[in-house]
């Protein structure tokens, strides 16, 4: 069973990379655009920290780590998660999801692996660049156990992002004409650019428990600084697993709700 799915993944990856290779010129352009994004995205950070040392207990260098994680995860999101799931929204609109559902493999697996945009890897590189620069500013190195923890958190954050996307896509089964679901999701994710300590009250509650943005960027940054407790780490991993479980249930229900366009 697992071997079959691994082979399927290989086939899907190969076909999407062949698709990408058709447009080699795009690779350079996309890289440039993504670099441009990263640089301009820093503008508010510079404006916020103009003339002050720290905001909500985060110094400029530390906040830069959060931005680094944001950039890196954005690369993961836009490179591996968004492209194929955008296809689902298209399928639902046109009623062609039938062709996917008929195939003898799990539908969620099939729709999640159809397309990858490898050039978004440039985002991951700029994220790593930001880490290096941030630690240079902080004039210290990352904590070694913290680095391991942050790698674990990278996994759980990716799982969280993916599950949130599945939930958003499931909404497409119930609402007509949702071409802009991607923008909706990206604009929510955008709040993860800032250390979660700046959000107070209702927003803080929402971003910790309902849309767990704090877990995605603030926790890994804290782990790198070596001040994330083991309890928080476990909570993050557990939380992301629970989230994945819920999104899977919701997906299955939505599929049940789906009536094809031709029927």
């Amino acid at each position, binding site marked *: 069973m697992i071997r079959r799915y691994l082979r399927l993944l290989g086939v899907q990856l190969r076909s999407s990379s062949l698709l990408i290779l058709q447009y080699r010129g795009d690779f350079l*352009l996309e890289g440039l*655009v993504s670099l*441009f*994004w990263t640089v*301009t*995205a820093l*503008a*508010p950070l510079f*404006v*916020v920290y*103009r003339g*002050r040392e720290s*905001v*909500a207990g985060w110094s400029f260098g530390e906040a830069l780590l959060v931005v680094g994680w944001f950039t890196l995860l954005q690369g993961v999101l836009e490179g591996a998660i968004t492209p194929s799931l955008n296809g689902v929204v298209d399928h639902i609109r046109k009623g062609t999801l039938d062709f996917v559902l008929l195939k003898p493999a799990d539908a969620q697996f099939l729709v999640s692996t159809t397309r990858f945009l490898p050039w978004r890897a440039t985002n991951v590189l700029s994220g790593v660049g930001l880490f290096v620069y941030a630690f240079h500013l902080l004039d210290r190195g990352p904590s070694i156990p913290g680095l391991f923890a942050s790698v674990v958190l990278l996994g759980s954050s990716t799982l969280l992002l993916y599950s949130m996307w599945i939930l958003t896509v499931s909404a497409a089964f119930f*609402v*007509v*004409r*949702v*071409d*802009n*679901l991607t*923008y*909706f999701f*990206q*604009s*929510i994710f*955008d*709040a993860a650019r*800032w250390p979660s*300590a*700046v*959000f*107070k009250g209702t*927003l803080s509650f929402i971003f910790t428990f309902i849309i767990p943005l704090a877990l995605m960027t603030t926790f890994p940054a804290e782990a790198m600084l070596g001040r994330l407790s083991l309890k928080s780490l476990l909570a993050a991993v557990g939380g992301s697993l629970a989230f994945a479980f819920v999104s899977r249930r919701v997906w299955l229900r939505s599929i049940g709700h789906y009536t094809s366009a031709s029927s």
Partner: protein
Amino acid sequence: MSLRNAARAFPTMLRIGFSEALAYRAELLIWVVSTTMPLIMMALWTAVARDAPVGRYGTQGFVGYFLATFVVRQLTGSWAAWQINFEVRQGTLAMRLLRPISPLWAYAAENLGAMPMRLLVAVPVALLSVAAVGRAAVPQTAWGWPVLLLAIFGGWLITFLANVAIGTMVFFMESSQKLMDVWLVLFFVFSGYMYPVELFPPVLRAVADWLPFRYQIGLPVEVMTGAHGLAETLGLLARQWMWIFLLGVFSFTLWRRGVRRFAAYGG
């Protein structure tokens, strides 16, 4: 086709735009939720201002500023670029071109027709702002109100015309989506959407003053929160309408040349 024809048909087109907005209300709602960035920025900046005010903005000042930003963004939205992009690639633009009125009027009517629905969101937020900040949230002078309306309308015009110009580029490139992304990044940085432009370092501020972006959001918001005196406001308003004129000439010329290149794919 004459301007008189268009003027006669425009009320009907507005009604169609309103019906569409009503029919696709879920889409409109999603769009509203995806413009919550000002609320995020409000949380951030009030956290920054908690220790000491930034410039002339204290905690209250930022609440007023960003709620006004939210309102202005609702009222100046345009999605013509996506529409043109989509219709050119699908070939459905051919249908619009058959009609005796330029499709640009239809795009404008669709945007403006959604206004009543958008006011449903914007007005409560404006009232909330008055409740939270008091009278400072809305213009306090008699001239402030008409100027605010003019500035918001101007902001929409700039957004719409820029959308047309960028959307029209699809006639010359395969897709204008990337170009729109670049415009949006510059918009976010320079429009005053994420922070008042006056918090910029002086050099960048001078740049922002001459770019069109701050006249989409920043100027109406500043008029709403009463940031400038009459003379300064009129000066900024003049720059806004200069941009409207420039963008108008540019995008209509571009559109006319572009349509000539249009061949309905798959039509």
